[in-house]
């Protein structure tokens, strides 16, 4: 059934491809296009160019996003993502295939959803939920901080790292939640409700690591926004990367670009504070010890004085005086006795001189009766009575032969 059995006009393939390329690339038909489809076969070259295929049920088209443009886009093509890309069609001469040179990338359906989001934002703003005067300042010296984030994400780890570095005294109360997917909103609100019952909470960090804009949709939910607006203590958000702003960022008291920055804003760096406190502490310690030491020295001195001036010394002095008195007394007494002795001797001499016995020396005798009494009268004697004669040098017995 061939009608081309006799070629009349033969084109070289290059000529054809060039003519096709001219047709495609001149004119406006295939320029400034927004194309929607699902991303497959994404690869990135070492130079940072991203190659991918956009497809739907009917067809597919190779696309390239060069590194220079890739820097400007907010969404990167990933396999499975539904995207709307902007660019123009070029025909690549070497293999005769068309490809889309991409210079902008958006999430598919973003248009409609963005309109809804914008409407919600306006409504909440009109209510005053985003007003600056509603924003509460973060506590200067937080002690207990609630953290709403995924238990498995890097955000929780990042926050803990910051707290450990800046002020380990701060207690973190973890309230785990799903941060993406259909249950995320419910889970996040439940986490906030849980934290609202925690006593002594100073602030809450709502954190989630970076993600594609469609992953951050729970953070644009009205119910979550209202839960944050009525939360009793200041809330700081650290959701996504810097270029993504969600409604929770608007309603939050403080907005940080990342979980780490959120933690840094909420938890002041205490190292300087701690250093100052330590210095004060050392001064107090030094003063306390000085106070104790000075009193010890006084006590030691007083103790020594007490010993030196103890009454024992006084008693010793008294004892010495006593001894001296005693000696004086003894001397006095000692002087007394010989004196008396002398007096006694002279008295005795005098006595002896006057004694009747002295007469005996001159040849007299004293007569004593048997009863030892002196018989001075002859009439007191009886004949035959035995008497004693007391003479100068002793006594002698005698008998009365004759009595008057």
């Amino acid at each position, binding site marked *: 059934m061939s009608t081309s059995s006799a070629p009349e006009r033969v084109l070289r393939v290059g000529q054809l491809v060039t003519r096709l390329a001219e047709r495609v690339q001149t004119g406006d038909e295939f320029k400034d296009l927004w194309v929607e489809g699902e991303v497959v076969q994404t690869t990135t070259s070492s130079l940072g160019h991203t190659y991918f295929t956009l497809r739907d049920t009917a067809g597919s088209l190779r696309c390239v996003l060069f590194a220079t443009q890739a820097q400007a886009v907010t969404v990167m093509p990933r396999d499975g993502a539904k995207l709307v890309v902007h660019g123009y069609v070029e025909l690549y001469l070497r293999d005769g295939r068309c490809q889309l040179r991409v210079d902008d990338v958006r999430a598919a359906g973003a248009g409609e959803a963005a309109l809804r989001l914008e409407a919600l934002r306006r409504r909440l703003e009109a209510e005053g939920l985003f007003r600056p005067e509603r924003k509460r300042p973060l506590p200067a010296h937080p002690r207990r901080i609630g953290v709403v984030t995924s238990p498995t994400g890097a955000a929780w780890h990042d926050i803990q790292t910051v707290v*450990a570095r800046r002020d380990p005294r701060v207690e973190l109360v973890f309230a785990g939640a799903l941060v993406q997917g259909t249950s995320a909103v419910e889970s996040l609100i439940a986490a906030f409700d849980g934290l609202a019952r925690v006593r002594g909470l100073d602030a809450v960090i709502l954190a989630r690591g970076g993600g594609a804009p469609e992953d951050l949709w729970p953070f644009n939910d009205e119910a979550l926004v209202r839960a944050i607006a009525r939360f009793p203590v200041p809330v700081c958000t650290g959701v996504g990367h810097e270029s993504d702003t969600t409604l929770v960022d608007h309603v939050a008291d403080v907005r940080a670009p990342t979980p780490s920055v959120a933690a840094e804003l909420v938890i002041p760096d205490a190292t300087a504070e701690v250093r100052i406190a330590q210095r004060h502490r050392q001064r107090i310690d030094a003063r306390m010890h000085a106070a*104790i030491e000075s009193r010890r020295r006084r006590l030691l001195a007083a103790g020594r*004085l007490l010993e030196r*001036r103890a*009454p024992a010394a*006084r008693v010793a002095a*008294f004892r010495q005086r006593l001894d001296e008195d005693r000696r004086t007394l003894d001397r006095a007494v000692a002087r007394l006795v010989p004196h008396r002795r002398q007096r006694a001797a002279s008295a005795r001499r005098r006595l002896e001189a006057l004694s009747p016995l002295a007469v005996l020396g001159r040849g007299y005798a004293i007569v004593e009766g048997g009863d030892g009494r002196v018989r001075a009268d002859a009439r007191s004697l009886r004949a035959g009575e035995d008497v004693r004669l007391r003479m100068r040098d002793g006594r002698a017995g005698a008998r009365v032969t004759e009595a008057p």
Partner: protein
Amino acid sequence: MTAQKDEERGPGLDAALERLEAIADRLEDPALDLDEAVRLYEEGLRLHAECAKRLDAADLRITQLADALAKQGRPAG
């Protein structure tokens, strides 16, 4: 507890110390009556022991507080 008990008991450490020093001064007076000297000496010895005990207690309390604070200040984990 011990510190509180100490405070309840008699005058403060400083007052006791001053009294002790006053006693030491008085004992220097050679004209002091012996009975009075003995009485003052007895009081002095008692005050000296009391002051030493209180100083030791204060010292211990300070050490304990510093230790407790050191333990408390240590980061957990």
